[in-house]
């Protein structure tokens, strides 16, 4: 029962948070939750599926743009309509990109996802869709309304926080269920030894594509709320630098768990805030820190847990994280 203790404590703390801290921190934690959803979504593909994707920001940004495009002028959009639309758009993009990218292996997969992500970036940057390089505004936060009666106005930071928290918990629940299901085990098998998984009868391409699409859809969920919170979408939301940053979050948090990336997101966001406030050259420091962390902790920050809390007997000491589509120099 010890396993339940920490999550319950954290949940209680999360629910209590907006009542005890200033609004600025409520919004900050909302943002951390949103990035946490994005990072966990990416981890389904990277950690569980072994697919290193550099285009997830494109799904994130696309969903944000869908909200901007569907938001009527200065009135709030309906969350019940626009959120599914945004996630559907992200899922569709993931389907097309995944269907093409999964025809390749190893490094080529990474390069292809990077390229297609950039393609979506240029689509919004160079064309007139939603303001081009200037971006577009989401003038009013979406609302949850049924038949004209407003149930929840997301303009209130507290309401927004709880809606995001709800989706965070839902994401954790869905991802946990997926990972523990037969599908999740087949996905892990394909990552661990593709050849053996295929020769047992698992349809590898289909399994990976499904995982990639689910991962993209959840990334879209995060992007929707990011756009709603920030009130503005710009092509940078689809940029590969963001994709790479989310990968860092995934690595920091540890690839082998569902909630690890949430911690990674928190750590990196706090780190960025601290660095940006301290120096103009924060990118340099961030780059160096990333390098140090990756070199020192290949298993993520969780490697530090045994050092801090004492090693638990039922856990293996260090889980080697080595996910990547089976090397194929020659395919």
């Amino acid at each position, binding site marked *: 029962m010890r396993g339940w203790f920490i999550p319950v404590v954290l949940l209680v703390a999360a629910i209590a948070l907006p009542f005890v801290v200033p609004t600025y921190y409520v919004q900050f934690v909302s943002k951390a939750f949103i990035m946490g959803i994005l990072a966990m979504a990416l981890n389904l593909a990277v950690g569980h599926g072994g697919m290193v994707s550099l285009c997830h920001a494109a799904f994130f940004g696309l969903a944000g743009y869908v909200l901007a495009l569907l938001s009527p002028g200065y009135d709030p959009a309906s969350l019940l309509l626009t959120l599914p639309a945004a996630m559907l758009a992200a899922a569709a993009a993931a389907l097309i990109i995944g269907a093409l990218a999964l025809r390749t292996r190893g490094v080529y997969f990474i390069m292809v996802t990077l390229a297609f992500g950039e393609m979506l970036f240029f689509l919004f940057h160079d064309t007139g869709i939603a303001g081009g390089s200037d971006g577009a505004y989401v003038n009013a936060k979406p609302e949850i309304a049924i038949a004209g009666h407003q149930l929840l106005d997301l303009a209130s930071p507290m309401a927004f926080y709880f809606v995001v928290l709800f989706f965070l918990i839902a994401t954790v629940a869905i991802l946990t269920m997926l990972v523990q299901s*037969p599908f999740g085990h087949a996905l892990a098998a394909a990552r661990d030894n593709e050849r053996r998984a295929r020769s047992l009868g698992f349809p590898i391409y289909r399994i990976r594509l499904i995982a990639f699409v689910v991962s993209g859809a959840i990334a879209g969920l995060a992007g929707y709320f990011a756009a709603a919170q920030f009130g503005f979408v710009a092509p940078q939301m689809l940029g590969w630098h963001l994709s790479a940053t989310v990968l860092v979050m995934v690595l920091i948090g540890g690839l082998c768990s569902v909630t690890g990336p949430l911690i990674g997101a928190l750590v990196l966001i706090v780190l960025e805030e601290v660095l940006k406030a301290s120096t103009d050259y924060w990118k340099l420091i961030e780059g160096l820190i990333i390098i140090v962390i990756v070199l020192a902790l290949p298993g993520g920050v969780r490697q530090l847990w045994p050092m801090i809390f004492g090693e638990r007997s039922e856990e293996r000491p260090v889980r080697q994280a080595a996910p990547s589509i089976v090397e194929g120099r020659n395919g």
Partner: protein
Amino acid sequence: MADAVSRVALRASGLHKRFGGLKAVSDVSIDVHVGEIHAVIGPNGAGKSTLINLLSGELFANDGAITLEATDITRLPPDRRARHGLGRAYQKTTIFPKFTVHENVRLAAQARSPAPLRMFGSVRSDAAVRDLAAQAIARVGLAAQTQIVASDLSHGEQRQLEIAMVLATDPRIILLDEPLAGMGQVEARGIIGLISSLKAGRAVLLVEHDMDAVFELADRLTVMHDGCVIASGSPQEVRMHPAVRSAYLGDHGDAA
């Protein structure tokens, strides 16, 4: 024991495979009956690996046809062939090294269950799959190692594990690619006994270099040389075949 007409589980006819200008397999035909172990032997470069890859679907033939029971599987990829009842063990042990013995075999059983890609519900809830896995593990003699991580097993135990995985998919035909490679005498004895028991109710194709084991196990023998079949029949017939003696068995005394 044997039916008057033994069912053909796998039949390949007229297989050709070229790599650029090199003919790896030329007009090879072979069939494997239920209840028999059909061994394929030949010197290095004879085309045995290519043949087994053609049969399992990792390579596609340039020409020829392959049928599994009644189904034409010539153009099917490996996973679909597996779902039709083809199982394969590899020359280089191909298992899931980071998973336990139980999880390895459970995955195999899952692959052939009615809903292998179910996206909800924990794997623990499927008792049928778990029982199938436990049976297969016990059958190969690894029951005591069920919770051991596969990479921690000995070489011979990993071979046993691979066979358990193949068994858990309940195949009609099993392709064994040099199962005794790299084994000591004692380990090999165990595997030989296991292989012999596999043919009950299914067909087994065995590619192997260890001649003693081959003659002990095989009901029928096919000899390959330079990509072609040069002889096929019972072990006794093949032993006497002049082409075989000159090409292969004549050197057997010196071979490892």
